[in-house]
């Protein structure tokens, strides 16, 4: 099936299918969403207005049998950061879109009235439908209702009430094969979908299949690739403990941001750790291992049951657990799991929102450690859109401005996640320079600063951090284009067979002859495309800085500050 661009205009409610322009042919995933946003969106436009566009793109290898290739990228100008934005997630949607022959789905314009719609995507194209029943409903009800309404097992992309209310922390959720949710979490892209008045997108690939130029070569490359993933020891720990295995090691390193970023260690760390979570899941009959999309060989997701053995949440991630746990000082995993479930249902980012709660705790809105209080405010304020709910739903920066708080951990107005940049300096360079605001996944220096993957760079000194962040940000931009889960990077950094196998997969899929340098150049060009958009939107090098308190407030236990000068940070872009 030939790949096409599916375009939807929500102003005049028309749809069309277009050939892929030559300049876009070599792109997928983040590379494609960023290329399209940069080409078609006015950088100075209002993110929630008709000039912004919401772009969905499966990765280059999505829809094939390649292991771990089911990531869906979503791009637009972000209402949270004002920068270009890409967020990606697992679930079934990327594989189904690719099997529909959809290289990218571009949603533009905006309805002139207040009516709501849904989209149905098949290999024949896109149909726009009026939607009434599910407006105001949570994501879980959307997924259940749409699955019952449509034949087969459609892929579903949905927004909750937060997206409908255009909250800057609203996310876009993707149904996984078991009816769980994965989130394109960061940057408020759910608000952009809400501004287009689209509640959900259902995807039915029917018998559509992705073309493979060289089947035999593809099969061999996939075998080598999957072996590299399975053989890497990090994959074993990820399958057993999930990403939450990180709580204890980041705490031990003195870099677990605690009590709104005032300490690097949390007394309750072991109670919220991956080890405790694993034992709790097993004792309650949950699933410690679960794949968020077919073909994942790592299985870092899990199903977490409550004390009565009923499913409470799934895809329970380190960063979400850290944010509600250490940052808000909640040491009860059940409270954290309940809040995680509510946030998934409301459709709001489980990093941005709890970091916003920690700032609200510092402001005295509720006490630190008040897990039931977080759940209550999520249900009664955020979900219902009260004034307090909208302030919290606007993210950490929004809470800081509303309550006059100076310790607000954001870069480009996006909340800093689970690794303190004073005690892990490499990640501070990533937070500062990322084209998308503070985001650990943009250049995960934790691998080398803390975990000993891809070599070692001392987390507490300045030496080598800019180069480390640069190399990882370039590699990540390329990986994010393939549809691959970023967790392939652990194997790619250590196992010499992994990256060549990945390039072989791409070449076998498209009949190309890419080499390693082409992949590096792809990563560089994506970063430069994204940065050019931001500069045209009004951002300068001065925006590539951390908040003041990171430079002035020493973080216990190491009592360190972030000490890179602006000039040193700016050398990041010397490539």
């Amino acid at each position, binding site marked *: 099936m030939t790949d096409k661009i599916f375009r939807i205009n929500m102003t005049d409610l028309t749809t069309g299918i277009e050939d892929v322009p030559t300049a876009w042919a070599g792109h997928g995933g983040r590379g494609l969403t960023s290329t399209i946003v940069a080409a078609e969106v006015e950088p100075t436009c209002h993110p929630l207005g008709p000039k912004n566009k919401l772009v969905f793109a499966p990765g280059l290898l999505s829809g094939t049998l390649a292991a771990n290739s089911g990531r869906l990228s979503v791009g637009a100008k972000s209402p949270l950061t004002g920068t270009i934005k890409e967020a990606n997630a697992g679930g079934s949607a990327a594989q189904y879109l690719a099997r529909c022959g959809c290289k990218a789905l571009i949603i533009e314009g905006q309805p002139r009235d207040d009516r709501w719609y849904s989209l149905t995507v098949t290999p024949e194209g896109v149909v726009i439908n009026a939607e009434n029943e599910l407006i105001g409903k949570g994501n879980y009800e959307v997924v259940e209702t749409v699955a019952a309404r449509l034949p087969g097992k459609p892929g579903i992309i949905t927004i909750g009430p937060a997206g409908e209310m255009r909250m800057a922390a609203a996310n876009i959720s993707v149904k996984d094969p078991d009816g769980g949710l994965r989130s394109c979490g960061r940057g408020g892209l759910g608000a952009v979908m809400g501004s287009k008045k689209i509640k959900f997108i259902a995807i039915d690939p029917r018998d559509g299949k992705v073309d493979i130029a060289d089947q035999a070569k593809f099969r061999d490359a996939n075998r080598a690739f999957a072996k590299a993933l399975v053989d890497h020891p990090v994959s074993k720990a990820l399958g057993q403990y999930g990403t939450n295995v990180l709580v204890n090691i980041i705490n031990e390193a*003195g870099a677990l941001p605690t009590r709104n970023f005032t300490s690097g260690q949390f007394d309750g760390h072991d109670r919220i750790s991956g080890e405790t979570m694993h034992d709790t899941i097993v004792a309650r009959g949950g699933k410690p291992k679960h794949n968020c999309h077919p073909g994942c060989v790592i299985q870092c997701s899990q199903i977490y049951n409550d004390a009565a053995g009923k499913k409470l949440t799934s895809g329970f991630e380190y960063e979400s657990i850290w944010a509600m746990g250490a940052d808000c000082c909640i040491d009860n995993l059940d409270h954290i799991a309940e809040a995680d479930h509510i946030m998934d249902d409301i459709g709001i980012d489980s990093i941005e929102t709890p970091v916003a709660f920690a700032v609200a705790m510092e402001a005295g809105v509720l006490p630190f450690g008040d897990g039931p209080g977080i759940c209550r405010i999520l249900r009664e304020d955020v979900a219902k859109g009260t004034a307090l709910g909208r302030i919290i739903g606007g993210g950490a920066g929004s809470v800081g401005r509303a309550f006059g708080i100076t310790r607000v951990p954001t870069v480009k107005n996006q909340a800093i996640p689970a690794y303190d940049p004073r005690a892990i300096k490499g990640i501070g360079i990533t937070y500062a320079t990322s084209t998308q605001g503070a985001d650990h996944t943009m250049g995960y220096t934790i691998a080398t600063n803390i975990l000993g993957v891809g070599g070692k760079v001392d987390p507490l000194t300045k030496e080598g951090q800019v180069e480390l962040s640069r190399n990882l940000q370039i590699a990540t931009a390329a990986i994010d284009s393939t549809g691959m889960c970023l967790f392939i990077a652990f194997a790619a950094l250590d196992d010499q067979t992994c990256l060549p196998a990945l390039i072989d997969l791409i070449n076998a899929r498209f009949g190309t002859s890419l080499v390693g340098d082409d992949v590096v150049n792809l990563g560089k060009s994506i970063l430069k495309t994204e940065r050019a958009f931001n500069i045209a939107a009004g951002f300068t090098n001065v925006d590539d800085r951390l908040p003041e308190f990171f430079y002035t407030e020493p973080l216990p236990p190491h009592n360190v500050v972030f000490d890179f000068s602006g000039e040193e940070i700016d050398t990041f872009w010397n490539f």
Partner: protein
Amino acid sequence: MRVTVKLFAFFRDGRFKEEGREYSTGTVVGDIVDELGIGRDEVGVVMINSLQRSLQSPIADGDVVAIFPMIGGG
């Protein structure tokens, strides 16, 4: 000398989470790993007093030694 040893992830299986243990002067982290029956090649990260160290690092009285297998996330 007295040292606190902390183990993480599956290194805890059949061993312990945290224990105060006696060692003689000149002990390095690798000796502790050997004593606990952990393969040196299984060790991913070693910290002494929250600082990144190696299997060759010597320990001192009162140290907190944390031993992790290769783990990742993000």
